[in-house]
């Protein structure tokens, strides 16, 4: 039924003047192409989303009987220290990691884009972390932080290094930042490289003739022209880091204490192992809202500064 009423005159009329107006019917093949995917998507995505929202208003433990409890779960969340701590950790980690990833990736991309030797090899090396599983890399970093760096610190006589930062509740989050940045920079570098290649070289020549120095060229040409890539990288990084899970499991398992428990981890642990199915689903729904709001705000702010050629 929706098919018959579709008539945005500008597009349809312009493209296929007569034929479309006469035969509005969509060939059955197009329906056949989307139907299986639509059904799978509905069953495995939409239904769980609706279920999640539904359960968040109940006291379901994952098994047995349940009742509606209205907004009780959401109210309880606000007073839950563990959840509040997980939000604090996650945001602190995500913001710091996002900034570091983008600064480093932009610098590396500029370096790889310049006239250097071994460009292909270097590019391959810098992208390598992206093909490695975070969980496994996390175990390697755990050993580096826990054993190698302290040993190194001791032999060099540096006190600050001689204990494991992962054992320090105040510093453990920095370990997660290092792992996150190490792994995520690779992908951001690729995006920035793609962006740098969209800038025509003559712009720099013109700027050089006008007497612009390198820093000025970067500020006035490079950065504004890759603003779209800056936006996508910032939003992608922040969103991905807000969902952090593997990094924490591999490095600290949320510890020491609960100092590095991320929101995803609290939802996983409480929901599957703590009998808090409905409660943690409410947490997930709330977190969904938070992520959407953050992403939209971020997009708005960042897009305002974008320019195009």
């Amino acid at each position, binding site marked *: 039924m*929706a098919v018959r009423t*579709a008539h945005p005159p500008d*597009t*349809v009329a312009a493209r296929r003047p007569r034929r479309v107006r006469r035969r509005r019917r969509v060939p059955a*093949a197009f329906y056949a*192409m*989307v139907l*299986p*995917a639509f059904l799978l998507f509905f069953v495995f*995505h939409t*239904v*769980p*989303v609706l279920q*999640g929202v539904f*359960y968040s208003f109940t006291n379901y433990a994952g098994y047995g009987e349940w009742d509606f409890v209205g907004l009780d779960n959401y109210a309880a969340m606000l007073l839950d220290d563990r959840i509040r701590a997980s939000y604090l950790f996650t945001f602190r980690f995500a913001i710091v990691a996002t900034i570091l990833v983008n600064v480093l990736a932009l610098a*590396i991309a500029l370096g790889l*884009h310049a*006239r*250097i030797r071994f*460009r*292909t090899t*270097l*590019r*391959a*090396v*810098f*992208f*390598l972390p992206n*093909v*490695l*599983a*975070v*969980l*496994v890399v996390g175990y*390697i970093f755990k*050993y580096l932080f826990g*054993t*190698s*760096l302290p*040993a190194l610190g001791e032999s060099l006589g540096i006190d600050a290094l001689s204990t494991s930062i992962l054992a320090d509740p105040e510093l453990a989050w920095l370990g997660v930042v290092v792992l996150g940045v*190490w792994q995520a920079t690779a992908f951001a570098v*690729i995006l920035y490289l*793609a962006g740098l*290649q969209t*800038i025509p*070289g003559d712009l*720099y*020549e013109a700027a050089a003739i006008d007497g612009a120095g*390198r820093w000025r*060229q*970067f500020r006035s040409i490079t950065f504004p022209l890759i603003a779209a890539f800056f*936006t*996508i990288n910032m939003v992608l990084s922040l969103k991905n880091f807000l969902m952090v899970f593997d990094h924490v499991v591999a490095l600290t398992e949320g510890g020491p204490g609960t100092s590095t428990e991320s929101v*995803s981890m609290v*939802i996983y642990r409480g929901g*599957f192992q703590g009998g808090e199915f409905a409660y943690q*689903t409410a947490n997930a729904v709330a977190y969904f809202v938070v*992520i*959407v709001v953050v992403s939209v705000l971020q*997009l708005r702010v960042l897009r305002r500064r974008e320019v195009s050629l």
Partner: protein
Amino acid sequence: MTAVPSMPPTPVPPSPTGAAPGGGPDRAGSPGRRRRSGVNWWLTALMVVCSLTVLVPLYFTVVTALKSPEDLGGAGFAPPTDPRWANFADAWRLTDFPHAALNSALITVGAVLLTLLTNSMVAYAIARNMHRRMFRWLYYYFVSALFVPFPIIMLPVVKQTAWLNLDNQLGLIFLYVVYGLAFNIFVYVGYLRSVPRELEEAALTDGAGIWTTFWRIVFPLLAPMNATVGILTCLWAWNDFLLPLVILSSPDAQTLPLVQYVFQGQFDTNYTVAFASYLMALSPLVVVYLLAQRWVISGVMRGSVK
């Protein structure tokens, strides 16, 4: 992936530097550097030093995997006195490596193939019917899933897959295909809208059906996007930890990352064997990557531009 809608809608031609890095003419120029000037050796040296941040942890993994427990002291950066290859044999046995690797491979190959076949098809149907309200809605319906974080569906979907008897490798394949749909539809449709329709219309006029047109003309035209989507799906399905962790119920179905997790718990102190195991878990994709890295990088780059 929420950022994707902010990308410029106009396609940018694949860059020469992406396809033939280093060799080709430097079309884009180098920021702040004169065009005809030679190689910047200072910058090269700086970049090489920076690349050590990637290489040193990998070197560390390799030497640790080759040490004997007695060798393992201090910071651990020294090469092993006598390479102990038996670590790999031990890790192979303890993790039942072939079994886990086969599971990972099965899931990855299944997810990639099914994703390429179905998602491109859906994107084609949507892209060529965007003027119809129903398909436009379908597009927004799929793409809106970019905003839904996994934890919100994690608990219900686990119940559901268990109920449907899909808490196994097949279920995981389905989930990767479905959860990748939002992003893939987005890039495929964006690309298809920039592809001229003359070829398809010519085929249709010549009497080819829509299916024939799709398989003979559209699917091959999508090759660059297929590469991007295939690579990203492959990396995701092979390396993923959370989805297999929550979905798979039988120990028989465990994937490589999961096996490392279990391994970590059981053999906490056996570091040298653990590192051999990590190395074995990481190496298949590294080997593939080293063989295909130009292609991988330019594929991912193209996906990002579109």
